């Protein structure tokens, strides 16, 4: 799922400086799971904003809402009536959710309250780690299900860089070397022969973000 972290409150306060009545919108999906933008975080941030503004003698009215999935138009549109009552929106959904609101409510300023960080998994309570960069052509079959694109700092396709030490990454000392994990996994699966293959360079400019805006069109689902 998408992982995010709340922006520093001072940065958020700067965005909101000209406004006295805002809507603070969270999201019930990914950012709820990573405790960055769910109902609880909406409530806490709203209180924080009210207190901070009260402290400088410039009260702010904060309406609170947490749609189930802000990135889906049907849920975003549920905010229509509330949005008409405010001067600006602070969204603590991911960057996708922010832009869904922007598309449907073009006349009102909408600000991000979180930094969208990565696509990752929960390691343990309070710890999340990147697992996918949505590169557009999954190679997990070749690498024992461990992704070198998201987990190797150099995105290497053909083995480790030589800088890893005791199974840890040269760049992020606390991170496991992706190629150590790939080796261990393939060994467990008795598939070390897969490492003999030279994996060709990725076609970044065709399959990935470098090709420009990506879009999926499913003719069978269009109405």
């Amino acid at each position, binding site marked *: 799922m998408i992982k995010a972290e709340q922006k520093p409150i001072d940065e958020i306060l700067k965005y909101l400086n000209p406004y006295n009545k805002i809507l603070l919108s969270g999201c019930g999906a990914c950012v709820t799971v990573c405790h960055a933008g769910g109902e609880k975080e909406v409530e806490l941030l709203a209180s924080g904003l009210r207190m901070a503004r009260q402290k400088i003698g410039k009260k702010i009215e904060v309406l609170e809402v947490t749609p189930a999935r802000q990135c889906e138009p049907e849920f975003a549109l549920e905010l229509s009536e509330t949005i008409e009552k405010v001067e600006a929106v602070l969204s603590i959904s991911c960057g996708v959710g922010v832009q869904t609101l922007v598309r449907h409510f073009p006349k009102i300023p909408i600000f991000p309250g979180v930094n969208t960080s990565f696509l990752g998994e929960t390691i343990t309570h309070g710890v999340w780690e990147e697992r996918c960069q949505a590169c557009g052509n999954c190679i997990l079959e070749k690498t024992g299900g461990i992704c070198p694109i998201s987990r190797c700092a150099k995105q*290497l*396709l*053909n*083995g480790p860089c*030589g*800088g890893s030490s005791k199974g840890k990454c040269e*760049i992020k000392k606390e991170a496991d070397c992706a190629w150590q994990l790939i080796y261990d996994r393939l060994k467990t699966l008795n598939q070390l022969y897969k490492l003999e293959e030279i*994996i060709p*360079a990725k076609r*970044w400019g065709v399959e990935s973000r470098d090709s420009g805006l990506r879009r999926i069109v499913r003719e069978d689902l269009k109405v």
Partner: protein
Amino acid sequence: MSFKEQLESGKFVVVAELQPPKGNDLSELYEYTELLKGRVDAINIPDLQNAIMRLGSLSVCTLLKARGMEVIYNLSCSDRNRLALQSELLNASALGLKNVLLLQGDHPSIGDHFEAQAVFDLDVMGLLGTAKRLQEGYDLMGNDLQGKPQFCVGAQINATAKGHVLDLEIMDMEKKIRTGVDFFFTNSIYDVSLFEPFVKKVAHFKVPIIVAITLLKSVGMARYVNKHVEGASIPDSIIDQLMKASDKQKVSNEIAGGLIKAFKPLCQGVQLIPIGWEKQIPTLLDDVGL
């Protein structure tokens, strides 16, 4: 005789690494080059090594070649995409540079421009394949080239890997040879016993291996290397020698000289990495009769 011809003849080659300046003043580098002229078989010029911004390998190699030196041009995947990498290889060829060392490259986050974006559009296997492709007269998209560049291609190996990492390294070496590598440079090695198992396992490849020897300048440097450089293991005996040394440069040369003699029967050359003690190299070579 070109570097490639020397390797093919089986000669034991001596390479010195000279770091380009951070800036465009080459006077010091030229001074070192004059000292090394006729004493080393090639000068290896790193490109943005350790992700530190410096003058590039291409211009330094071109300038040193014009002064009559055999040079090894370095190119890595860290800072250029596949268009730039191919273009740089063509640049090198057009400028008369034939020896190229193709590297994975260092991640910008370890260097002095740690806010930079890492590129790694290709990995080193992709870059080696690119050099092969260009030499066949095509670019990576299959377009014909006007003129075929010819290179003597080198790659890096970690020759002190142990356990399964050693198995991976040998697999990596085999893939690199398949992709057209003509010679290998190793990491810096300070203990011949760590190199022997590697040599035994790769002897059948019959591709020249050039061992790197970094001049050790102090006990502190040796301890730092032992702590932070993967695969490096400087024996206590060497650290003791450094500790007792009244003349550090003399003892450093004795250590390097001992290593050269020990490695000589096991490999096809050495790369001396002086990092500041470039002027010592002629004396060191005198000491070992090279």
